[in-house]
């Protein structure tokens, strides 16, 4: 299991290859890549800055991946999240999950992403023609995370 916070871009192909590492138990590799869009709330976005809480971010992501490893039958998982200055079309986040079977890989990948959106301390600031503004949290993200709640969890 690996969690990385970095300013640098990442190469999805080589990251997935490293995660598989020719492990013959892996029959399914699911991944999600989040990208910077050039529009938000009807306004054009020319640039985005991602701030985070060093220390807590890594812990929160490790806890989310740890919970996924408990809930599904997984072989490995990887989260890379970028911070700093990003431009439209840039990659922001990679979540990749390796499992024996696709159902576990798909579900865990979506779960990690939904929890990351609501529990990992990152904040986006967008630069638009009207100036810069903090991105508001979306109720949809809360509802998406809520789906995964278990009784007593």
């Amino acid at each position, binding site marked *: 299991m690996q969690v990385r916070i970095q300013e640098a871009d990442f190469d999805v192909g080589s990251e997935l290859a490293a995660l598989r590492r020719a492990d013959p138990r892996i029959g399914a590799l699911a991944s999600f890549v*989040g990208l910077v869009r050039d529009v938000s709330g009807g306004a054009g976005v020319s640039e985005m800055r*991602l*701030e*985070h*809480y060093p*220390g*807590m971010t890594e*812990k*929160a992501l490790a806890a989310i991946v740890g919970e996924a490893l408990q809930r599904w039958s997984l072989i490995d998982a990887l989260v890379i*999240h970028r911070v700093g200055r990003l431009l439209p079309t840039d990659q*922001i*986040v990679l979540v990749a999950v390796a499992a024996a079977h696709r159902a576990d890989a798909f579900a865990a990948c979506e779960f990690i*992403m939904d929890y*990351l*959106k*609501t*529990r*990992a*301390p*990152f*904040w*986006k*600031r967008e630069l638009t023609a009207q100036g810069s503004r*903090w*991105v*508001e*949290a979306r109720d949809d993200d809360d509802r998406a995370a809520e789906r995964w709640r278990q009784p007593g969890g």
Partner: protein
Amino acid sequence: MLTILYFASVRERVGRAAEELALPAGVADVAGLLRHLGERGGAWEGLARIGNLRCAVNQQMVALDSPIADGDELAFFPPVTGG
């Protein structure tokens, strides 16, 4: 001593990223600390009233009625927007 961190819009609101503060007498939880900070006036008064204010104690997200103790690292921030 408490370490208090402020992030994103909350940091801009109070004009401060971090501070060290002796645990004020009579303050036992996050809500109590917010009341104490509010006594500074100005932008600090509004801190406790930010409807969606989030708090972490020792890098774990907690509810505002959570206890705090000397040596804790606290952080105040808006709802997260990563991914």
